[in-house]
């Protein structure tokens, strides 16, 4: 079993496309992590904000980041399933 895993890792290492895919997976995970932190920060600011105009802008920001995260997660899912197939 360990040999199979090792062989698979070696194959991945020598396959440029696969290497790129793995790099993208890492990058997207990193971006998603940072976006989620940003989203939390925006949500917190929104709950504390009293100015209506700022609140409106923050709400739009929250919606945009949420949509970006959803799109990013879909893309991540695609990258992961690509490997499975």
């Amino acid at each position, binding site marked *: 079993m360990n040999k199979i895993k090792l062989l698979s890792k070696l194959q991945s290492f020598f396959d440029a496309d696969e290497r790129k895919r793995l790099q993208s997976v890492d*990058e*997207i995970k990193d*971006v998603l992590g940072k976006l989620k932190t940003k989203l939390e920060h925006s949500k917190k600011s929104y709950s504390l904000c009293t100015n209506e105009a700022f609140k409106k802008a923050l709400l739009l920001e929250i*919606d945009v980041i949420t*949509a970006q995260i959803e799109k990013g997660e879909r893309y991540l899912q695609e990258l992961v399933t690509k490997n499975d197939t």
Partner: protein
Amino acid sequence: MIRNSFLALTVLLLSYGFWLSADFKAIVAGISIFLFGMMSLQQGFKSFTGGVLEKVLKAITNSLVKRLCFGIVTTTMMQSSSLLSVLVISFISAGLLDLAAGIGIIFGANLGTTTGAWLVAGFGLKVKISAYAMPILVFGVLFIIQKSKNLQGLGYILTGIGFLFLGIHYMKEGFDAFKATITLSDYAMTGFQGLIIFAALGVAITVIIQSSGAAMVLIITALAAGQISYENSLALAIGTNIGTTMTAILGSLSANIKGKRLAGAHLVFNLFTSIVAIIFLSQFVWAVDWFCDLVNIAADDYTLKLATFHTLFNVVGIVLMLPFVNPLARLLERLLVDKAGAVDKPNFLEDSALEYPDTAVEAVRSETEHLYDNVVHIILKTMGLHRRDVFTDQPMSGIVEQYQKLPDYDLDDAYQRNFKGIYSAIIHFISQARFTWEMEQSGRLYWLREANLKLAESLKGVKHLQKNLQKSNASQNTYLKQEYDNVRCQISSLLREIELFKNEKTVSEFPLLSQDMLKAQLKEQNQQMMENIEVLIRENKISAEMGTSLMNDSAYVYDIQSNLISMAATVFINQSTVSIDVEREMVLSDSELSEVVESSPE
């Protein structure tokens, strides 16, 4: 300022004249009606030709004789050279005609204006043309109120002719009646002094009336009434030739450099012709007598002799000047250089850069940045704003409030000067380079070309917007003005955001994703503007027509802004950022953004 003072002085002098004499009133009314007739005639030809003039003009660029004939025939038909001058300037500006060819047409037009004198002297004064004027006017107006464009054109031409006849009639009647009170011929002057003084008087009359054709008709009618001597009328005719260049020069003050050069050629030709006429006046008089004798014009028919003289010295002028058309064009191009607004040239595109893919990409990127700066300049100028204010921390609404008056900015000219040349050079450079390299640089160049295209699209939007911005600026409706101020505010705010981005003052961890927020704000602004417009229409604060214009313009505003953002995403974002490829996959599409904005509660 000078024009306003001139107008005020003219109004004062005319009022004084009207108070002094009823006959003077009839003469001036005649001139006014005649001028109105000329305008109507031009209007008629404009709507009637429907591009025929342009087609003919394109076809005759290869021969000097054809150009001369075109100038003569067109001006004879329209009885004014101004419409033709405008057409020639636009053709020269578009590169369809060179200056030398334009000069040829203007020479012909000059000769064409002399046919008016023949018509008046040969026909207008010999028969009672006011009798023809009335039915012509009736038919003219009847045609004008028809729906067909061609009939309307014909109507304007007929009313033009009717008013020309009526104007001549009033001038003639005025001078005849004037004779009973004042005899101007008592002030006739002979010799060289008389020649110079009356030539100067001819200049003054033409400058005031702003038409050499009308001035000539005035002189002929005065001559027919015996109010001026034949000798003085010759000097006056020479004066009209100089005077008409003043109107051309005044008109060219607001024209571009090509218009100025053409006005310069007009000035040189007319001054030269007039000087020749003054120096060889006695020879011309002899030639006129000889010609009139040849074609059986009576020796005492001074009006026809004046018309002959007018045509003759213009023909001589053309014959003498024709060999110098090309040198004159070259001289004017050298003398009248567009210093202040010279055409902007590319700064970074060197052929040597094509050898090195990365250098070439950077050259195109830098050039696009240069082009963007020019676009910003044009947009701000169109909106009556200044870089020095917009790119500060001041609230944008305050800046817009501060600059309420929109300048009459020539966007087409700015496009030619500051955009077209660089844009074309970039596209040419990319086309030379992009297919020869490996994919990465080729792809980058493709996106940079797209960014340039977005800049061109933005300017197109600004061009559409300008018309209504100007209109709203002159409007009394404060609600409409407020909406257009918001438009100015929105566009300039975006330019400020992009400027911060460009100068890396806004540092974003995810530069591409952060653009989504800007785009979402644009969508929201656009949605808000649409709702505002609906409310304003519903509450009758603006008319439905104003509202629909605003709605169209809000679409232009959105296009301008989204094109600028797309351009900025390509040009100002560091494409070597680690996560840029992943970000590209996560950027929201237009429909996804719309969904977000629509689902976002207000």
